[in-house]
């Protein structure tokens, strides 16, 4: 299966994250890149831009910019050419998906400007899959590519993300869930104790992804290592003040996804009333 990795405005974080997959060697035996920014490939980027090369899956990375050119050719012309050839298109990362870090009025994702769909590439919507993240989780991308190769049915959410990986929130599998349940923040960065939702800006309860189900480097995740989730898989990424929970009169402005405010506050009021001795102690002295 021939892959083309096409980069628009990008920091190349996704390229590096992809190479961190423990499956990378096997993957490269099963797939071939006609072009990838860091790997030896049969074509140069200039050849990709100036010639017509066959590809099966287009991996688009980075934010698109109106009028952007490479090698004297408009980027979007080349993008459309390969989008037409490809059986599937994957927007790799939140920049290619929603605009992400470089978003502005004339910079956008492939199908979305944040969560708002735009029409520029709408003809390709039916064959597009969103793999958002900053950077992407390598397992999510690689497993999705294998699913395409093996012709498995992928169930997508309304932003075209595979539900297998984005049907859950990052909160799912977080080791700090007990602290969340009893509304205990009292966290110090890097420590094991405390939930980071109430004061430290953690967006895990309303961010979709698998960071705490499929660990990074098979080892850890942001919240497990004591840093808040930054909500990097969502169209709203990046928000301002990532280490700060915006609160209105002490109540977090963004509540866990799908939970009515009244229900959340009722439960929180009950949970807060109890002082659980175990949660006020250090796990490792």
């Amino acid at each position, binding site marked *: 299966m021939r892959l083309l990795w096409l980069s628009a405005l990008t920091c190349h974080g996704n390229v590096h994250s992809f190479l961190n997959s423990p499956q990378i060697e096997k993957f490269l035996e099963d797939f071939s890149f006609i072009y990838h920014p860091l790997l030896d490939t049969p074509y140069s980027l200039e050849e990709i831009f100036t010639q017509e090369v066959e590809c099966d899956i287009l991996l688009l990375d980075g934010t698109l910019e109106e009028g952007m050119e490479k090698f004297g050719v408009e980027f979007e012309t080349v993008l459309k050419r390969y989008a037409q050839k490809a059986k599937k298109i994957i927007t790799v990362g939140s920049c290619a998906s929603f605009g992400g870090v470089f978003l502005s009025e004339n910079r956008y994702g492939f199908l979305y400007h944040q969560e708002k769909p735009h029409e520029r590439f709408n003809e390709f919507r039916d064959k597009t899959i969103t793999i958002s993240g900053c950077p992407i989780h390598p397992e999510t991308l690689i497993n999705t590519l294998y699913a395409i190769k093996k012709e498995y049915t992928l169930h997508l959410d309304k932003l075209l993300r595979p539900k297998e990986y984005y049907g859950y929130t990052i909160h799912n599998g977080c080791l700090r869930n007990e602290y969340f349940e009893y509304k205990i923040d009292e966290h110090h960065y890097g420590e094991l104790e405390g939930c980071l939702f109430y004061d430290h800006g953690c967006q895990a309860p309303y961010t979709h992804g698998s960071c705490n189900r499929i660990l990074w480097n098979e080892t850890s995740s942001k919240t497990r290592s004591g840093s808040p989730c930054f909500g990097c898989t969502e169209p709203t990424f990046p928000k301002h003040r990532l280490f700060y929970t915006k*609160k*209105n*009169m*002490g*109540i977090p*402005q963004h509540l866990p996804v799908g939970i009515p*405010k*009244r229900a959340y*506050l*009722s439960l929180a*009021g*009950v949970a*807060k*009333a*109890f002082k659980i001795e175990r949660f006020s102690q250090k796990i490792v002295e």
Partner: protein
Amino acid sequence: MTKKEQKKELIMQKALELFAQNGFYTTTIPDIAKSLSMSVGNMYNYFKSKDILAKEIIKYISAYLGVKLREINESDISTQAKITQIVTIYFQTAKLRPEMIDYFLRVFLSNREVFKEGCEGMICVNDFVTEIMIFFEEGVACGELRNQDFFSAFGLFMGYLGGMVFLKGEAILPQELEAYIDDISENIYRALKA
């Protein structure tokens, strides 16, 4: 509501009046049973102890006020207008159901040992406090109220209203509570506005 639930509510209402009027410790289960022409044994079919009854009553009051506050929260009016409505509801309750506010001030807040277990924190007044939280949160979110610590605002609002009802109960206020609604609402709004 089932017949048993209706009866429970009737007992709570009567007990509420007696507790508020005569004090928690001087009012006994036989007193409550007698006022309802019930046997003491039958009373225990509804409430296993006086402490349990006391806790159920505070939840009953909280739910009663919570429903009224929810209606205000869900109405399409400004935060300033909501403040006036909350003050009005509170004072109306103090006038029409004085036993409710009296119970809150003179039994619930004054006999904390009774409510230590089973009413930790704000559990037994959760319905009421949740609506106040929603009122504050939405007031800040729409830009009408100043963002601050919840309890600073809660204490200002509820402490003020409770204080006025207490003064009325002590026959110190020269006028009826309704006469103060506009000024008090204005004061609360000025203190909390953005």
